[in-house]
């Protein structure tokens, strides 16, 4: 714990640091032009709310939230499925495990933007009746789900592997089937342990929703780009950045909270 003196020193050094950074920026030779190009009040306001020729960054941001929420729901389920498949034992299921491994290897390896292009411009070209006439947002969500499920499956797998073998042995000796041991003994512990890294991946996902714009939809980052190109002013990017930060901060603090809670719980468990 920091004592009173510690708090004083850390506050003082923080203030000093911020002041110095501020002075450096303010004294830099291009300060006024940067202020005008990035932080002009009128431009900040106009890009946030939109005008007759430029979309509102705030309104466009709703699309990011929509994409993120839908994708996240699918990712949680699909990734868990993949992790479970990789945990299925027995030589008979080797092909199944193989598919899961190949899937994670491929989709963790390909940059998201390439997957977006392949799905968004490739699938409609196939001419399949059911798949080929979806909106570009749908293709964007599919691409996000494909890529992030591969990441998140690995997170789940790490959680499952972290549960000690003896727990499975104990569950099996109590007469639980393999599946039941997984369902009632391993998974509850595994999932609790991986919640922080899971949330970390979701913060990444929130930001990557911006990439869906390559398929044509106007989300916050694209709306900001349109404003910037029209007005030759970057204030709109600042607005978009602030919006993204505003939704990731609560998630980050929530993650911290979960980590602390988990640590306290485990310590409490150790002493009793």
């Amino acid at each position: 714990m920091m004592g009173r003196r510690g708090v004083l020193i850390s506050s003082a050094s923080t203030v000093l640091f911020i002041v110095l950074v501020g002075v450096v920026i303010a004294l830099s030779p291009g300060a006024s032009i940067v202020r005008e190009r990035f932080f002009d009040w009128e431009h900040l306001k106009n890009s946030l709310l939109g005008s007759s020729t430029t979309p509102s960054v705030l309104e466009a941001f709703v699309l990011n939230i929509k994409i993120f929420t839908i994708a996240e729901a699918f990712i949680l389920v699909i990734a868990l499925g993949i992790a479970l498949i990789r945990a299925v034992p027995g030589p008979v299921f080797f092909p199944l495990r193989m598919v899961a491994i190949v899937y994670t290897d491929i989709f963790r390896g390909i940059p998201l933007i390439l997957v977006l292009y392949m799905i968004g411009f490739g699938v409609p070209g196939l001419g399949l009746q059911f798949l080929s006439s979806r909106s570009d947002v749908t293709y964007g969500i599919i691409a996000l789900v494909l890529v992030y499920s591969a990441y998140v499956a690995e997170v789940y797998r790490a959680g499952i592997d972290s549960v000690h073998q003896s727990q499975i042995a104990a569950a099996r000796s109590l007469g639980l089937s393999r599946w039941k041991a997984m369902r009632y003994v391993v998974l509850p512990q595994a999932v609790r342990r991986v919640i922080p890294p899971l949330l970390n991946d979701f913060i990444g996902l929130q930001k990557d929703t911006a990439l869906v714009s390559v398929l044509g939809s106007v989300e916050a980052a694209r709306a900001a780009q349109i404003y910037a190109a029209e007005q030759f002013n970057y204030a709109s990017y600042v607005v978009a950045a602030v919006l993204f930060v505003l939704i990731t901060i609560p998630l980050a603090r929530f993650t911290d909270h979960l980590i602390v809670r988990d640590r306290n719980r485990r310590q409490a468990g150790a002493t009793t």
Partner: protein
Amino acid sequence: MKRMSLIVAACLLVLAACAEEPKPNAAAGGGSGDTCAEGNLPLYEDGVLTVATDRPAYEPWFKGSPKDYSGFEGDFAAGVADRLGVPIKWVVEPFNKSYAPGSKDYDFDVNQVTITPERSQAVDFSDPYFENNQGFLVMEDSPAASAATVEDIKGLQLGAQVGTTALAFINTVLQPDKDPKVFDTTNDAKSALEAGTIDVFVTDLVTTVYLRDFEIKGSKVLGQYPKPENFGALFEKGNPLVECVNSAIQEMKDDGTLQDLQDEWLKQYLKIPTFQ
């Protein structure tokens, strides 16, 4: 702790001291008389006209490699260099960076940039060297191919490239029922048109005809919309070279060079029926 903050402070001050002075693009008021005289030209690099454009650069605006661009804009810039009496050197500048604050590493940028009052607050433009209309590109086998009036177009899914004035044109003039789709590059918009996620690609007339003839099989230009836009060369705000380039452009207009260039590179592109 105290020593630590001192070190931090020292580092920051050093940083501040090293922050680059803005490079005076011109030797301010450099000496005697005519700034546009060959020896006095306020050039980024002495004795060379450094001109920037994005890459890939598209025909018919640019042809060949950055070592020796021809094409309408390539030849136009070369003509300017010629009249200023210096050789030309091409560099790459992405459009989205061309209006960033700070000094530029070239004299001017030519990249089919439309002159608008908003943009003129951030950069300086030369006098216009070309006037372009908007065009509509569709796939021949799509329902959009039968659109005959602006009213028909309003109900379709339109697409445009970000940073183009086609987007503002869609929003203010056409005001379609559905929000337009917006793409990073012409190539992405082209893929979307081929994939059918957009019905109409709206961009400048010359580009639509180029795409029809050389890039997208089975596409069709519906027509041009008379909403002329002026292309200008883009300069860092306050660059005194603008005056010299403007007089070169005026010369090229007066002696018919610009018209010749237009006939040479753009003639086939401008013969498209006007859209009502």
